[in-house]
């Protein structure tokens, strides 16, 4: 193990190493590195609607797009979307997992129910919410008392009112992502040694005290992972917006997230592959920066165990 390998030996091993790496290099190169480089190059250009006859504008296009009204609006919408979905998804996921982490008979039924949204695609979940929230023939809009409680449900409809549209899309996203968080946190809970809880209980710690002092700190690595995944998901959410609002209600691109601005059918830049690439690369940079911040700020507070 610890023996030093001479430079010559290393060179001799190179062909073997390359041969072993070749599949990864080819696949990553063709499907990750090349498209990424191509997207960065394309992001300097503006293209005709046919995707041909692109002309180069220059690196300045990245800056111009970044400060443009549309991109900033989309960035702000995305940040708000993440600020709703991440904490809500996290709290609900942890709450459900803790509830279901009880040695009761029949608890498996609840675990199955709580995790069932994992088996639901975003498209199915979104369509379900679309049918629930549709203001004319939708299920919720025509329930009398609910209607009186929330008049927006009927007029103009939660998804059509600029004040509620983003929240509604976010809630459907939280619902769809809940099963995933639930399963991760449940797995995390099962990794916490039971004797810690027993010892604390013997010392007289109450249930809530044990939750805050034992469960939560030991869940740290899991929660960090969940937060990063949920944030990334929020920044990449597309299906919900596409199916529920098409980036509207208009005017104001109320739910046009960065992904919808980049890929959306009704996006203003839908016909320009250059601008779409610019937007996609900027989204990548934003996400990269965000993940780093999260790792840095939350990462050092997380307890990874005894070492």
């Amino acid at each position: 193990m610890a023996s030093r390998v001479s430079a010559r030996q290393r060179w001799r091993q190179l062909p073997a190493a390359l041969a072993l790496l070749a599949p990864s290099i080819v696949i990553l190169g063709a499907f990750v590195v090349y498209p990424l480089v191509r997207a960065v190059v394309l992001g300097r250009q503006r293209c005709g609607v046919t995707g041909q006859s692109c002309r180069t504008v220059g690196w300045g296009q990245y800056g111009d797009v970044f400060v443009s009204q549309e991109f900033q609006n989309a960035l702000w919408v995305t940040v708000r979307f993440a600020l709703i979905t991440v904490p809500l998804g996290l709290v609900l996921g942890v709450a459900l997992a803790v509830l279901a982490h009880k040695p009761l008979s029949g608890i498996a039924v609840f675990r199955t129910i709580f995790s069932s949204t994992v088996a639901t695609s975003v498209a199915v979940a979104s369509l379900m919410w679309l049918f629930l929230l549709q203001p004319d023939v939708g299920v919720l809009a025509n329930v009398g008392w609910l209607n009186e409680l929330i008049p927006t449900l009927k007029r103009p409809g939660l998804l059509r009112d600029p004040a509620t549209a983003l929240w509604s899309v976010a809630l459907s996203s939280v619902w769809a992502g809940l099963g995933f968080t639930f399963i991760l946190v449940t797995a995390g809970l099962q990794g916490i040694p039971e004797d810690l809880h027993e010892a604390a209980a013997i010392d007289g710690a109450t249930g809530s005290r044990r939750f805050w002092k034992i469960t939560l700190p030991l869940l740290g690595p899991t929660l960090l992972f969940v937060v990063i995944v949920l944030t990334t998901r929020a920044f990449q959410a597309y299906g919900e917006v596409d199916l529920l609002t098409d980036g509207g209600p208009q005017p104001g691109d109320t739910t046009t997230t960065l992904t919808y601005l980049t890929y959306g059918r009704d996006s203003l830049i839908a016909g320009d592959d250059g601008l779409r690439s610019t937007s996609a690369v900027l989204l990548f940079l934003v996400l990269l920066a965000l993940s780093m911040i999260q790792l840095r700020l939350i990462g050092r507070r997380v307890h990874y165990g005894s070492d």
Partner: protein
Amino acid sequence: MNRRRLTPVALLAAASIAVAACSSGDSIIEQAGDDEPTTPAPATTVAEGSSGSTAAPASSVAGDEPVATAPATNATTTTTPLAALPDCPVDALDGATAPVEITFWHGLNVDNQTAIEQVTANYNASQDRVIVDPQNQGGYLETIDKFFQSGDTDRPAVVMLPEYTVQQAIDSATMIPVEACTSAAGYDLSTFQPATIAAYSAAGVDWGMPFNVSNPVLYYNKNMFVEAGLDPDKPPQSLEELRAYSQQLVDSGAAAYGIAIDSGADSGGGWFLEQWFANAGELYADNGNGRLAPATEVLYDGVSGVELLTYVQDLVNDGLAFYVGDNAGGADQLLKLADENEPAAMAISTSAGLGTVLNTLAGGLVPGLGPEDVGVGALPGPAGVPTALVGGAALYIADGKTDVEAAAAWDFISYLVSPETQSLFATLTGYVPVRSDALTVEPALSVYEDDPRFRVAYDQLAASPDSPALQGPILGPQREIRAVTARAVAEIFSGGDVQTALSNAAQVANDLLAAYNASN
């Protein structure tokens, strides 16, 4: 160590996000259009040549302006004559020794997909020289993107592209104009509805063969008309009648609203607007709606556009129309007719949806509204007479294929637009036939007689006079311009200032046109 290296990056990112949040930039499209003037493009010349005629777009009468524009515009553009465009080797099939296999891309789904596959199978069975493989690309948008981004060898021999793609099809230089085939084959177009041919032609050349044609019609609840004391067989035709009918429907308590309207790009926010301009005999864009030369500016922010949208906005403000939003669901305005508590009595939607509407109602999903209770009327418009622009899609023949493939493509297309196929396809789908003799053969003959509602879209197209305004606009970035316009219409229906909204939208639309013309 690792963490220390991350710090500057993280701080930089945080700072840039903060900057983005507080600075306010220009439009994403204007940004990119900044270096426009430096690019010499034929389009710029056109803009100068025609700017005089576009100064007063609003009050012109159909026919006058374009005629006046024509000579000047033609003088300044490089219009390509048919002879200089790719040939159509219509006789090449005779030399083929084995059956020719070609691919056909379309964007029709569900019932319409079944129909197109059925008529293609009929074609394959009807002869032994050509075998066509129909491939659904998922939708119009997917077909457009995939076709234009493919190389010559990957393209299908025949492709179906929607009506807002004409300019792109021309500029992509990937097509054999269908007129090359019709003239080489001596194909008789005399029974075709002239509007359908005109819709797919530019600068005097027919590019696509119209195949599945639809246009917007008025759907209404006959029961409510009766309850309000209106004649259920006489739907409103002018906007004034639309208002009067709505008033009566609301006053009598027959309906909560007269009409449900939306601001979707392919419905109330874009397509209907183009239809209304055509109905009024107004040009939607300069250079004869982009038919004489590529358009350089839209004209909907003029007096007539403002008048039109103010009229509709008043309907909303006065509680006569219900604004259903961006139509993200695609049929939101129709669903308002099925509202249990606060229904509207009328809605405008594409005629292509008629079959689906009737099937849905036949399933008994809406209590008190059966298929026989739905009336279909011509699109009410400013002129008060029925007219329509051609919607739907056309068939194009890809250039760069072998002669036998091109000939096979033409043979297939001529089968698809034959009276028999058009008659069958129309009754299978709800699209209207492109030619009048399709109505004289079964099954359309009896279907149209039994249920005149299927005829409305056909009739209003047939009634449209032959004029540049009624050819409709062709714009390079038409899809994006519709999206921009739809945002303005949404603002207007939500109570915004009409002139401001339209002017702002027109400015962005013109930027889009300039950017498009600069790179094509």
